[in-house]
């Protein structure tokens, strides 16, 4: 797949045009990814509402039936349930890593096996989150699809 980028000063928002002869799985994946990257999620923080781009989210966690969204340095709360967010974001590089957490694989720096047989994902902002071993296969598959 050839990538061409043009810097244009006459447009306000970036636009993506995908040229293809046949609508293959790879082309569909790129389309889904582009559609998804602009997805925003309505959240709240200290009484104020925010719209967070999916691409800026590091991970989403559900605690005590509340859903929290973590970006590089802040945490927000959303009314959406984890399962809804999982469905919404599964085709834009998000993967479930435990019963209560979904992760943006773009923010994954490494995975480590801890001494107590637990697994830990280290994110690009230095944060560490627990990973359940049963989701390792899913993480691997998302990374393979991403790297194709």
């Amino acid at each position, binding site marked *: 797949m050839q990538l061409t980028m043009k810097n244009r000063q006459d447009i306000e928002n970036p636009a993506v045009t995908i040229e293809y002869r046949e609508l293959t799985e790879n082309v569909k994946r790129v389309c889904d990814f582009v559609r998804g990257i602009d997805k925003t999620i309505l959240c709240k923080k200290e009484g104020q509402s925010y719209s967070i781009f999916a691409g800026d989210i590091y991970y989403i966690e559900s605690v005590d039936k509340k859903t929290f969204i973590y970006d590089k340095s802040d945490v927000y709360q959303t009314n959406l349930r984890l399962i809804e967010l999982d469905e919404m974001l599964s085709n834009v590089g998000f993967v479930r890593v*435990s*019963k209560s957490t979904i992760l943006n694989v773009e923010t*994954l*720096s*490494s*995975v*480590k*096996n801890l001494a*107590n*047989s*637990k*697994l830990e994902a280290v994110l690009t902002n230095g944060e560490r989150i*627990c990973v*359940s*071993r*049963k989701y*390792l*296969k899913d*993480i*691997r598959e998302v*990374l*393979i699809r*991403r*790297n194709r």
Partner: protein
Amino acid sequence: MRKNILNIFAMTGVTLVVLSLVALCYKASFLCLDTVFQALGVNALIYFGVYIINKFEIPYFLLETTIKLIYSIGLILVFGMIFGWYSSLSVTVLTVMSLAILLICTFLDTLSINGEINEINQLIQDK
């Protein structure tokens, strides 16, 4: 599903090797065929029981390990009674054997997990 079946057969293989070593210590010269299938059946039950325990994602490592140990050894001792294993092995020997098998399987499992983690880290480097 395929991986689960392979894992059960691997556990059964380890069980039969450990059982054979113990049998050699007792100067035995053969293992009964029904022992092979009994070992397969019990290993399958242990495997699926541990699979269900893993689904709960218990956050405390010691608690999770204790539950798995009690379940596995409990199951082996119960089936030992059902299948008449105590006519050739004492409870203590059977318990020690079970611990050895569980340790070997845990070690093999850790190697497998480490392999997956290395692959994931390589994919992260490549992206």
